[in-house]
């Protein structure tokens, strides 16, 4: 439904929690992309060591996942963190940071909605945070 009442400047203020969320997303996105690009450029240029060298990768990126993991001796879950000195693993950290941006935004909403006692919105935020934490921590939907 759309209607067209007279509007004033004060009518055109966006909800502060929405603006705060936008700010978190903007900064989180920049951080994730920066880490991802630094790692990947270091990987491609050879400035950083490679966990899986590009030449090897070309030969195995069409393999099914279990075979790929076996051939590269890769672990699932958070095991990759021990190889952070490698460019490709650093790029993976950047990708993981992008996966954490929503969580950062929702933590802000958790505080805002709690402070404003907006219980319905706060409840949705709590459930979403719980889901993201459980799945990111590999406690549900786990890869072994």
């Amino acid at each position, binding site marked *: *439904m*759309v*209607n*067209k*009442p007279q*509007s004033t400047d004060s009518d*055109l203020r*966006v*909800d502060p*929690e*929405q*603006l705060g*969320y*936008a700010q978190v*997303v*903007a900064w*989180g*996105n920049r951080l994730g*992309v920066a880490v*991802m*690009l630094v*790692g*990947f450029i270091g990987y491609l240029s050879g400035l950083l060591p490679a966990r899986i060298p590009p030449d090897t*990768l070309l030969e195995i*990126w*069409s*393999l*099914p*996942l*279990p075979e*790929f993991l076996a051939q590269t001796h*890769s*672990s*699932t*879950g*958070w095991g990759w963190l021990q190889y952070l000195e490698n460019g*490709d693993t650093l*790029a*993976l950290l950047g*990708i*993981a940071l*992008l*996966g954490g*941006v*929503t*969580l950062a935004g929702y933590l802000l909403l958790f505080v805002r909605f709690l402070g404003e006692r907006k219980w*319905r*919105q706060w409840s*949705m935020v709590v*459930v*979403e945070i719980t*889901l*993201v934490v459980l*799945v*990111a921590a*590999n406690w*549900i*939907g*786990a*890869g072994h």
Partner: protein
Amino acid sequence: MLLLFATTFVIGVFGVMAGIGGGVLFVPLVSGFFPFHIDFVRGAGLFIALGSSLAAAPYLLRQNLASLRLAMPVALIASAFSIVGAQLGLWISELNPAYIQGALGVVILGIATIMLQTPIKEFPVVTGNDPVAKWLGLQGWFVEETTGERMNWTVHRAAVGLSGFVLVGLLAGIFGLGAGWANVPLLNLVMGAPLKIAVATSSFSLSITDTTAAWVYFNHGAVLPALVVPSLAGVMLGAMLGSRILPHVPAFMIRRLVIGVLMLAGARSVLKAFGW
């Protein structure tokens, strides 16, 4: 890798303008025409959808075109069921990747058909006083660029619309598609949100919806930086351009073009499943 970057840049521009996100175009196109295993393509597809949404979200939220209030319940339902979908998709793929490739082609062709036959409405007429929408505060406003006027909006049939996001989440997780292709029809046609709100809220909510399924693929080791990084860079740059063009172009024209590409990609996926 340059070809992958160029392909995904174009996907980013059109994905956000059509409100379908990048994933639904990326997965069938890249799994059909590039040599990567479909598990990696689906994992990347979710991060592509997530990344393009994150790139577009700040602008859309600040312009009040994307609604946080509307996105929260939608994304909560879809993200919960995308975890189940992701688990299911990885299990089916382990049985035989061709099952996923073929099913993906059929789903993509179905999505294109639905998009083709669905009469998207710029300003749907919302009747009644929906109790669920009222309870969740699903209302807002945006400024119509052509007239400079503030336009108030609300939605109806919220319970029916929100339940549709169960299926959306499942399919997003199974195929790594993102969910924008279904978000817009559900928000616009079923729930009655104005088209601009539906498109922008869909583009934004993908960042929440796809986060959970993306973590399932990530934790299974199905995320390959060499595939994700050039693709994500391409899609994000494309999405930034697309989100700025979005208020100035008729969305239906972009949709027609995207439908054509989806039909081509869907057909290719089906053929590939049969080894052709």
